[in-house]
């Protein structure tokens, strides 16, 4: 008899484990934090080690929206549309001080944190954040996904849609 013909686990743990290692990020890059995003996603820091390396350049195929940089009021409708185009399950990372809180911009043009427009799962501080901070944030998000509920069957109570 083979060693592992079957194994038992909880469904939420299994699905969470699968989802947390296949994050497909969509980089919504608007400002200078994009440089740091390039650095963190390329060879030296390499988010591929965490299964979050393959950026999809359409929101419809991705499940992690990384808002990288300043979001102005003129751009806010675009960000909201991009968020609404993503399929469930979806997570949002506010990357950098500007996306988190508006940063040092307190004026007529800048949204004071993207959580005024869309729900945010994880905030990454820094101007720009160090790559280690981003990796830490990805790992924390993975923990969150792993411990979350994943109602994949039709008979399960669906999670409320985040608005």
């Amino acid at each position: 008899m083979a060693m592992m013909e079957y194994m038992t686990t909880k469904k939420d743990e299994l699905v969470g484990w699968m989802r947390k290692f296949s994050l497909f990020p969509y980089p919504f890059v608007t400002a200078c934090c994009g440089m740091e995003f390039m650095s963190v996603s390329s060879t030296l820091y390499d988010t591929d080690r965490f299964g979050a390396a393959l950026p999809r350049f359409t929101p419809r195929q991705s499940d992690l929206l990384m808002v990288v940089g300043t979001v102005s009021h003129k751009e806010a409708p675009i960000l909201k549309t991009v968020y609404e185009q993503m399929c469930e399950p979806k997570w949002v990372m506010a990357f950098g001080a500007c996306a988190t809180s508006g940063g040092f911009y307190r004026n007529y043009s800048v949204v004071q944190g993207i959580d005024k427009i869309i729900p945010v799962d994880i905030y990454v501080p820094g101007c720009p954040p160090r790559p280690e901070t981003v990796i830490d944030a990805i790992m924390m998000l993975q923990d969150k996904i792993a411990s979350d509920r994943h109602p994949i069957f039709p008979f399960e109570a669906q999670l409320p849609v985040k608005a």
Partner: protein
Amino acid sequence: MAYDAMLSDLRGLYERSWDSFGMPVLELRADDLLTLVTRLRGEFGFSLFLDVTAIDYPERSPRFDVVYHFYSRSRNGRIRLKVQVPEERPAVPSLTELYGSARFMEREAHDMYGIEFTGNDDLRPILLYEGFVGHPLRKDYPMDMEQPIVTYRK
């Protein structure tokens, strides 16, 4: 100075002039602007329109300075023009007939300061959006007043 001959040629078209780090600055009335810029472009080679913006002096009357910068390749030099306009009717003639790039830059100055460029037929918002009330770079615009398009979440 290298531009003394040019300034004496243009005498009468400007009210006063001074030197700013080697660059001539001319202060003139709005009526003389088109004549002066036409001559600068035609006779002195100022073929590149660098910028138009404004300065707000809330306590002063007239309130605004409209500031132009031009560059001459043949002279390898820049020139700055200043036109004072009042708050009640902040209007200067448009330079779109002379420089195509003036269209966008005048739209920006119209966005930010509310300067009217008579002759520019397309003064829609370029950096701001439709529905934005006021002119954000004026000193009396509240520093933290926002006008969001997307309604905020609770």
